[in-house]
């Protein structure tokens, strides 16, 4: 398989997995939380708590999934000309997807170490994204 084929397949599969991970996260959260009150009381995500409190869960979920798929696809498409940046961005998106998938299951495990791991994965993805932005800007400065 050539590198272009590989990038082409990742360009479709990563945004798809990213969007699906949000659906898994929210559906398992709602399933295991049981009641609306329990979810509002014990949920970390301020956006999800706001959506549940105002009965906006379905529109919020649809908007998030559309934003995730389109945003990640456009970003990866823009980065596809630079192989290093593309793979780094792919790693960030996979890490966020992992945080989403594992995050929903935290309502099942309800473990301190498990919840801290989700927090750490989320923070590491932000760290990597800051690094990626800085790296791309530095590359531009070096080219021009």
């Amino acid at each position: 398989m050539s590198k272009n084929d590989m990038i082409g397949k990742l360009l479709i599969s990563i945004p798809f997995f990213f969007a699906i991970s949000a659906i898994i996260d929210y559906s398992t959260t709602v399933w295991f939380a049981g009641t609306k009150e329990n979810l509002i009381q014990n949920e970390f995500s301020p956006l999800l708590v706001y959506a549940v409190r105002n009965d906006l869960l379905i529109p919020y979920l649809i908007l998030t999934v559309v934003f995730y798929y389109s945003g990640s696809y456009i970003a990866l498409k823009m980065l596809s000309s630079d192989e290093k940046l593309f793979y780094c961005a792919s790693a960030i998106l996979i890490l966020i997807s992992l945080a989403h998938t594992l995050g929903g299951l935290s309502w099942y495990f309800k473990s301190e170490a498990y919840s801290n791991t989700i927090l750490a994965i989320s923070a590491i993805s932000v760290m990597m994204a800051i690094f990626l932005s800085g790296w791309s800007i530095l590359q531009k400065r070096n080219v021009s």
Partner: protein
Amino acid sequence: MRNEIVGAILIFILSLYSAASVSWYSPSADLPAAVFAVFPVMGAIGVIFLAHKKKAV
């Protein structure tokens, strides 16, 4: 090269949005908020280190 910068910034926005939208059971997590701030600071330090290494600053 402009496309790459826009793409990287879009990834950054996605990661920030996901940090606020990832759903997890919070009462069992006991990490203070300061720990959460350490990782972005480490990312910024990494960029500064890279800039010095490439003599771009």
